[in-house]
């Protein structure tokens, strides 16, 4: 459903993504792993129009994404949970969720999506009137994911959902990612926590300083000696 070909992004003189290609098939979880500064975040930002690639091609279903503004790309069915969560800290939990459904036209649809979200994240219903800035790290991450789901995406981009979370909370987020995928939402999971990413994903790509250095079946990557040493710490 998503095809990225030879994507290049530069910040001034520095090329952060140097010709990366990857694809996501409908219903799958694909993971991008790599160390600090590998270009994972930049790649996601290029997909949703937050940065303009210098060259390359991005096709989502039948549409080309290059040159489109972020608000149009959400409309096509791609939701992006950015690095650092980026909630609206002064808005309540409910207001944040409603912002996620900004493009929905009918009040009825928003209500039914909200009902579905509350089934998965009962804590968010409880915290509905609290401002987002006062939530714990794990709750903020849940809200960030839930806000993205409010747009009823076909493809969900997750940028380091485990960042700053306890092992227990990380496992919880892992479970949530599975549940979302079970509802036919395809996922690109960007993680420094390669173990988490590769256990959840079917397919993985390894980025190093802006270039793709390895790709394959997630299970195979988990067994690969090079990946083990560099990213799993074993």
């Amino acid at each position, binding site marked *: 459903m998503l095809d990225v070909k030879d994507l290049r992004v530069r910040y001034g003189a520095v090329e952060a993504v140097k010709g990366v290609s990857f694809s996501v098939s409908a219903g799958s979880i694909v993971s991008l792993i790599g160390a600090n500064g590998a270009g994972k975040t930049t790649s996601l930002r290029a997909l949703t129009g937050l940065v303009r690639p210098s060259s390359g091609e991005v096709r989502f279903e039948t549409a080309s994404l290059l040159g489109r503004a972020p608000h149009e790309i959400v*409309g096509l069915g791609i939701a992006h949970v950015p690095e650092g969560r980026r909630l*609206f800290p002064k*808005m309540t939990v409910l207001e944040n969720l409603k912002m996620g459904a900004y493009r929905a036209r009918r009040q009825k649809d928003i209500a039914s999506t909200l009902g579905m979200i509350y089934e998965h994240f009962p804590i968010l219903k409880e915290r509905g009137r609290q401002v987002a800035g006062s939530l714990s790290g794990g709750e903020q991450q849940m809200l960030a994911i839930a806000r993205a789901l409010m747009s009823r995406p076909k493809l969900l981009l997750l940028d380091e959902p485990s960042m700053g979370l306890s092992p227990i909370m990380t496992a919880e987020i892992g479970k949530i990612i599975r549940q979302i995928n079970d509802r036919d939402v395809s996922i690109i999971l960007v993680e420094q926590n390669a173990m988490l990413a590769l256990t959840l994903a079917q397919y993985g790509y390894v980025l190093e300083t802006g270039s793709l250095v390895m790709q394959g079946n997630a299970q195979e990557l988990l067994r690969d000696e090079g990946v083990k040493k560099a990213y799993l710490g074993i």
Partner: protein
Amino acid sequence: MTASLLVQSAVIGLSIGSIYILMALGLTLMFGMMHIINFAHGAVYMLGAYVIYYVFFQSGAPYFVSFVVAMVLLGVFGYLVERSIYRPVKGGIEPTLVALLALTTFLQAAGYPVFGQLDKHVPPVFEGTKNVLGVMVSVERLVIIPIAAALVVGLYLFINKTKMGAAMRAIEQDKEAAALQGVNVHVVNGLAFAIGFALAAASGALMAPIFKLDPMMGEQPLLKAFIIIILGGLGSIPGAIVGGLMLGLIDSIVATALGAEPAFLLSFVFIILVLLFKPTGLFGYAQ
């Protein structure tokens, strides 16, 4: 200072404060969302006053109609300024500020040939005086207060109760995150320009029957509005309201008691004191 003089200058202060608030609200809204200081705000105030001169005084339209015309015309102008200056000018805040400064200078300079070299006067709209707490106050000054209050309440409801208002608050907190939720940031920024310009036009339109009109007439209220948003906290709407009331009251009461120059001086002393204790302003917070 007698009690009646105090009441009188307090009412005048409230009415001047209302004008300051209308000016400061747009400035602070635009700063909060786009981190720009709209230097053109004073020129828009001036244009609002001239719309009253031409539409009300020269063409004989009812005052209320002329007031709405001023707000709508300059609101549309604000949207176009976003479209043609703010959006295309790239390279950060500084080039944008220079462009807005150029627009200001252009509007003021064009004012002389277009509106004439001589000051213009608009005849009184609301004549007579009204008894407030036993003191007679000019109706012209008095009506400013409810009109401004209505506009403030309207803005408050718009920002807090509508979807577009939610989009504005979202942009103020995180522009990129707002775009990722599907907000067309350009359009909503354009709306903020339109609202800011319309409110500046409203202030000019309210003052037109009270002060003489000349192309530089917006500079003093602009300066006051700058002071207010720094006092209240950059980007804060409650700050603009409280700051505007304080400055209006200080201006008027101290000016009545001690004269205009001490009032001007004292308002600066007051602001410096506030900023010494709270550098982000009364309602501001560190970004």
